[in-house]
């Protein structure tokens, strides 16, 4: 095994180069001018045009890119906070509190994880029309405020992370259940909450089908705005690439800051599955 190590490293590095290349290429084109796109051999080093492309992106009026960015940031932060809070609350209840119907209700939640939510988007759209939420961000945010996956994940986490004695002791001291949750449980759940939060943030940022259905192009999310760019300006590659780059940067920042936790979360989830 020792002898094959350099080869192994080389193979892995090649795999990583392959997985990183489209991102690098995204950056390269976003920094160039349109006339070099399509050249052969293709430009492989960044140019100096990033600022220009980005400012063109934000001033392209009917793309509403800045608004899309703000909308997505607002939705992602709100949804992430809500999902983490509600999932911890319900996960704690399922893991540590005794109540009638607990197992049955938990099964219901597990069952709903199998249902692709987008299958209900037509009636969901009708509900939004009834509520007058068409083309408003509530329509994107409110249905996503809870997550079956989140409840399940936080329940698993709470079972391991919180000793029963701790809760008993707090009860004897006269703590209300919510106070126990807020002061003892929530801090103990923090690592699990971080993983759930990261995935929820990425998921909300990347949501596409539903915003496309319920929003109009004058009030888009960032993915919606990008799709507008690619159908309307598809000869203007550097503009589209600048948009794609700006839409990816927040996720990359999250990844750079929390990469270890993300990997840990994927692997831990995998073992349990």
């Amino acid at each position, binding site marked *: *095994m020792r002898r094959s190590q350099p080869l192994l*490293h080389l193979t892995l590095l090649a795999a990583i180069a392959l997985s*990183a290349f489209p991102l690098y290429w995204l950056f390269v084109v976003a920094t160039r001018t349109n006339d070099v796109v*399509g050249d052969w051999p293709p430009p492989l080093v960044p140019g100096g045009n990033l600022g220009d492309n980005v400012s063109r992106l934000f001033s392209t009026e009917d793309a509403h890119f800045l608004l899309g960015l703000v909308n997505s940031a607002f939705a992602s932060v709100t949804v992430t906070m809500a999902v983490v809070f509600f999932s911890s609350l*319900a996960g704690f209840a399922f893991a540590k509190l005794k109540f009638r119907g607990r197992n049955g209700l938990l099964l219901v939640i597990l069952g709903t994880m199998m249902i692709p939510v987008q299958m*209900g*988007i037509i009636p969901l759209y009708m509900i939004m029309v009834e509520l007058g939420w068409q083309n408003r961000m509530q329509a994107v945010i409110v249905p996503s405020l809870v997550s079956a996956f989140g409840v399940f994940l936080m329940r698993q986490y709470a079972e391991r992370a919180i000793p029963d004695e701790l809760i008993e002791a707090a009860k004897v001291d006269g703590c209300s259940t919510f106070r126990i949750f807020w002061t003892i449980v929530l801090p103990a759940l923090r690592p699990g909450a971080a993983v759930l939060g990261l995935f929820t943030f990425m998921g909300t940022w990347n949501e596409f089908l539903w915003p496309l259905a319920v929003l109009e192009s004058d009030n888009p999310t960032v993915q919606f705005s990008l799709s507008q760019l690619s159908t309307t300006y598809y000869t203007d590659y550097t503009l589209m690439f600048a948009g794609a780059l700006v839409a990816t940067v927040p996720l990359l920042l999250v990844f750079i800051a929390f*990469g*270890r936790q993300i990997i840990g979360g994927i692997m831990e989830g995998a073992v349990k599955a």
Partner: protein
Amino acid sequence: MAVTDVRPRPVAPPPRAPIPPLRHGFLSLVDTRWSPYLFIAPFFVIFAIFGLFPLAYTGWVSLHEWDLGGAGAFIGLDNYTTLFGDPDFWNAVVNTLGMLVLATVPQLLLAMVLASLLNQKLRGLTLLRMGVVLPIVTSVAAVGIVFSQIFDRDAGMVNGILGLFDVAPIDWRADKWSSWTAIATMVNWRWTGYNALIYLAAMQSIPRELYEAATVDGASKVRQFRSITVPMIRPSIIFTVIVSTIAGMQLFTEPLIFGQGGYAISGGSLRQFQTLSMYMFEKAFRDFDYGYGSAVAWMIFLLITLLAVVNFLVTRRGN
């Protein structure tokens, strides 16, 4: 009866725990009894309104002639009968399944290879892992845009590379096989590393002694992989197969962005890469035929369930 009882008599009754005031006791009873339900209520309330109800209602809508004006006549299964004779629907079924296979099989096989490479004593393991999952932290639409350019007929890099081998440029959007390949490439690129990590996690929980014993018995690396690694990580394989199938059946963003211009939602001028989700979207939100769109939605749901069950049975029986 001898007086042998020498136990000390209590001088005073032992101090009892202070009795909490009645009101407090009542409140804490209410708290214990009701707070679990309050804690899980947000999930159930929001999910019932925005998740479960729409799903069931989709079925109801699909039994009607239903357009922008609201519910029309109840037409029973007419939408479904029409659907079964609708060539565009079957085209979408074939496209979705085709891309599903092209995007799932290589993805999982590559992930398996990648995982077994990563499952060695290596330096810089964390960095390697981060490199491998990098693709999942990109914006989906951005992936669509980058790969659209890479697979462009005139300016694309893939055609440029093929040109080095004297292959004539391919119009990737024009045919079924070529557009499916391009779209499947985006999906494969994005998810291979993620699946590799899942397999890696499972591989790391296999006891080393199994491999040592196999080596003593003279089993080759390949044989060890087939007879130890694969069976031991089977639960993870089932998991990834089912998850990839469900995701593949809902494929939407990648093909939509790949199909630039006015034909985007129909997946090219001849619907060569229109998926089921795109067809549902086209019917419901472009033609405003909500009844028909709902019938498509239910068919997608049934197909997903069917495929998940088949996958589960096959993967479990295999080996």
